[in-house]
């Protein structure tokens, strides 16, 4: 991440003119803003059938900044109509053209990197230096990755015997339903949309209720890039349109990122329609620091310290937030002292200021949840080492949703060690040896991510293979390159994203079993 930040934030060409980016719609802003946004269906802006809209709040200042469609099941049907109308032509589009469209999407995002970065920061509350350096560039790369992946994906054939050949073709599933989380409104959309389109499917996307707008800004750019109906976006409440989309007999697959209960509901709807689903449901990722990280005071130790502080990345609103730090007992005091000193240097403030390191939580609801978790942590006997309360930044930010970077020290049976808080709250504990580290790491319902920090390569390998999680970052954390499979063990979900294998997950397998023999079987 350091390298990426160096490139993007230090570059003057991508920086704001006067220190802080102007809010969308304000004079000098790189983002234009309409008072009201409609659904993106069939390449057009379509008003919701019932004419209802809902307010979209910026967590930066707690104020409404635009309205978006409050869609209903009727709008889901319109989006599905458009997707089905486009399905055949898009499914038959040559790989050359399909990849070209994906590359064009990437080019357009890249050309508008600053605009999308500011839009997403304003809507989600994440620091613009993260959207400039991570979210948007990664989204660009993701589309390019799948443009290449779909060109290189080959079907297989098997010579069963000298006259019989089994050919295997990838065929599109058809129309996909995709439900996007609020924590990376554009990157998580890219993770879902890119493989679906690359495999020749059309999609209906429902962004998360707190972050419906930035993806509509993306749609404005894609209107002339993606053929009408291939990508459709509808906004509205999950209970209404999320359900209507996920339970629709007109979709061939549903993709979802969110919490466990809705994940089960999604799989339940999929079962009722006998269609596949991919669900990513969060985690409680351990980040493990062995004593040898302090064998030298060098770049690697510096990297490990940053590795712990990465729990505050995207204000902790990350499915793989390294929210449980396990530190070897013998270095705990010295290591934590260094980490706390680093955390004290975190600057919290206006997310549109490129020097801001910690922005606003996405919603008031999330703020309340984080507060209640810190409360229960303290009630269970955890010790608050730093932070622990809402941050009041005054001025225009006073009504935004800011929480101080927080560390709670306790033990792994506490609820703050067992549940995803989705805030800048780290639960820290110690271990005596490798066996205990592994035991604590795996003592969780979840298994999405993990981090292992050690100078001992053999131990890193043993731990990496021993931890029951879909991804184990080894001497790094929070890297999300296209091409590294991402998904959960245990109740963290079913399926993978972010890898060429997704093309298989978004395809049917057609087997043509061909006999080149002229002889009958001889049975009848």
């Amino acid at each position: 991440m350091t390298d990426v930040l160096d490139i993007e934030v230090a570059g003057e060409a991508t920086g704001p003119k006067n220190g802080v980016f102007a809010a969308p719609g304000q004079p000098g802003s790189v983002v234009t803003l309409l008072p009201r946004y409609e659904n993106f269906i069939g390449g057009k802006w379509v008003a919701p059938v019932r004419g209802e809209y809902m307010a979209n709040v910026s967590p930066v200042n707690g104020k409404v900044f635009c309205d978006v469609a409050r869609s209903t099941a009727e709008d889901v049907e319109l989006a599905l109509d458009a997707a089905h109308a486009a399905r055949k032509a898009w499914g038959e589009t040559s790989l050359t053209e399909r990849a070209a469209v994906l590359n064009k999407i990437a080019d357009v995002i890249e050309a508008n990197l600053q605009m999308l970065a500011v839009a997403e920061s304003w809507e989600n509350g994440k620091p613009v230096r993260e959207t400039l350096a991570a979210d948007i560039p990664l989204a660009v790369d993701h589309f390019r990755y799948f443009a290449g992946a779909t060109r290189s994906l080959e079907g297989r054939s098997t010579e069963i015997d000298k006259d019989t050949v089994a050919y295997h073709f990838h065929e599109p599933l058809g129309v996909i339903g995709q439900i996007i989380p609020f924590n990376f409104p554009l990157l998580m959309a890219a993770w879902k949309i890119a493989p679906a389109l690359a495999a020749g499917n059309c999609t209906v996307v429902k962004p998360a209720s707190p972050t419906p707008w930035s993806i509509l800004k993306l749609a404005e750019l894609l209107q002339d890039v993606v053929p009408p109906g291939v990508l459709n976006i509808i906004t509205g409440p999950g209970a209404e349109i999320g359900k209507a989309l996920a339970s629709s007999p007109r979709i061939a697959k549903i993709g979802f990122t969110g919490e466990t209960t809705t994940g089960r509901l999604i799989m339940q709807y999929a079962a009722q329609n006998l269609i596949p689903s991919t669900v990513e449901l969060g985690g409680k990722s351990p980040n493990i620091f062995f004593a040898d990280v302090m064998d030298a005071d060098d770049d690697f130790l510096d990297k490990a310290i940053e590795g712990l502080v990465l729990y505050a990345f995207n204000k902790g609103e990350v499915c793989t937030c390294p929210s449980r730090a396990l530190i070897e007992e013998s270095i705990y005091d010295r290591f934590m002292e260094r980490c706390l000193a680093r955390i004290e240097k975190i600057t919290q403030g206006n997310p549109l200021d490129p020097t801001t390191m910690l922005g606003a939580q996405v919603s008031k609801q999330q703020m309340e949840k984080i507060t209640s978790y810190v409360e229960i942590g303290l009630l269970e006997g955890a010790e608050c080492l730093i932070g622990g309360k809402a941050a009041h930044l005054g001025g225009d930010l006073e009504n935004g949703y800011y929480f101080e970077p927080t560390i709670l020290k306790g033990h792994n049976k506490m609820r703050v060690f067992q549940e995803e808080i989705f805030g800048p709250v780290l639960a820290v504990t110690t271990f005596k040896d490798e066996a205990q580290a592994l035991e604590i790491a795996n003592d969780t319902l979840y298994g999405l991510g993990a981090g292992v920090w050690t100078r001992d390569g053999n131990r890193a390998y043993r731990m990496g293979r021993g931890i029951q999680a879909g991804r184990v970052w080894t001497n790094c954390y929070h890297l999300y390159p296209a091409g590294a499979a991402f998904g959960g063990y245990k109740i963290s979900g079913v399926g993978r994203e972010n890898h060429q294998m997704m093309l298989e997950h978004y395809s049917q397998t057609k087997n043509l079993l061909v006999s080149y023999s002229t002889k009958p079987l001889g049975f009848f």
Partner: protein
Amino acid sequence: MNRSPVPRRVQATAAALGAIARVVADVGPVMFFQSGGCCDGSLPLCFRDGEFIVGDHDVKLDTVGGCSFYIDHRQFEVWKHTQIILDVSEGEPEGFSLAAGPECHFVIRSRVFDADELKALATSPADS
């Protein structure tokens, strides 16, 4: 039987009970399922009764306002030493949950059971 009273596993506030009554009047019987995990995990999700298929291993924690309140059995194991307080807060629900009224959603807070309460609960396990 003369032992200390078994505490509620889920205690609804007056605001939550009022909201439940209004939601039930509006859409018919509802149920709650305590979620976990990503995004709006840790929220109590409110569904039309029967919308969510309760599994054989789910745990019914309590009945609040006439509605069943469930949790996943694995999650129950790590939550069972705490009482859930069901309440209502401003803002739309973020997942597939029904709203607790206009611009309102259900939330939980938690409280750690004391030793006596845990003892009483031990003799009266939650339904499963």
